[in-house]
């Protein structure tokens, strides 16, 4: 390290001021560019191997479907569970849980939660539903895709 030794031991005096200047500049540079890393998590969603990503078949009725619409005027998302508009996350959790338990009682534990959203809906709103479903230990979560362009 830089310390140790008496100044009188060393007959050659080194001017350390420029070095201190440079180290200061470097310190300022690294301090300004330093950023703490955000912890990231992932939801794995393996796509069907034989089909790739396709639209959900219209005849599927064994599902828990959440529709999401984007209101351009208010810049807000309207979430619909069946015919019911649900704004509150707690209420949404209760509804999904209730529906999932119904399906499980009917012997359908793999019933999917299908998120059917408008393409303008912010991704955070979609991920919120994924989060709620994961919190209820539902593994089968599907993203409904629009019809392919002809």
């Amino acid at each position, binding site marked *: 390290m830089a*310390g140790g030794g008496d100044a009188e031991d060393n007959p050659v005096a080194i001017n350390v001021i420029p070095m201190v200047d440079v*180290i200061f500049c470097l310190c300022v540079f690294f301090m300004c560019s330093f950023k703490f890393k955000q912890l990231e998590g*992932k939801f794995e969603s393996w796509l069907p191997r*034989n089909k790739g990503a396709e639209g959900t078949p219209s005849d599927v009725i064994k599902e828990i479907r959440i529709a999401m619409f984007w209101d351009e005027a208010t810049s807000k998302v309207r979430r619909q569970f069946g015919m019911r508009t649900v704004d509150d996350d707690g209420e949404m959790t209760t509804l999904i849980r209730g529906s999932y338990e119904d399906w499980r009682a009917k012997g359908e534990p793999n019933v999917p939660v299908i998120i059917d959203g408008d*393409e303008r809906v912010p991704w*955070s709103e979609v991920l919120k539903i994924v989060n709620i479903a994961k*919190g209820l230990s539902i593994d089968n979560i599907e*993203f409904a895709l629009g019809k392919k362009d002809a």
Partner: protein
Amino acid sequence: MHKRKVATVQDPQSPNLIPMIDIMFRLLLFFLLGADMAARETATMVLADADKSKEIDPNRDETEPETTINIHHEVAGDGACPIYDNGGVCRVKEHWLWSISGKSYTKETIGEKLKELAELSPEDHVDPDAKKVLSRRKVMIRADKSAPYGDVQKVIEMCGTATLYKVAVVGALPMPEK
């Protein structure tokens, strides 16, 4: 006559700079080691909260092929977007970019890139369901929290078309409590 001595201005005390230099070296070392100088796979964005997601293991097997697709907001030519900058939901299509390893792609060009990446790491057998060789490459989709869902849908669809079926979506985990 007794000649008076002219007083000279002298600094009798020179500060000892050595401890300061020591500390500054240590600070410099800390910031140097902490700085992320690696080629950025991820773009800067605000991720959506996902507290139930599985933490991405920083020590995961680096030999496993993996690609990160970023869907982030950027205005060309260092321009500003007042809606996005004020925390609003920007729906200007041109402001939403898709990038892989820092290179931007359009809806037309990303398909080709994904196909290229899929071919780099094929599975060693023909999938009995798909009746073709699929890719073992994992794809992580990192989308900004206000990114249009349609963009994420499109990327998932493109991955499926390019035989990339191992898709994961990324969210932000809450900071661990001490």
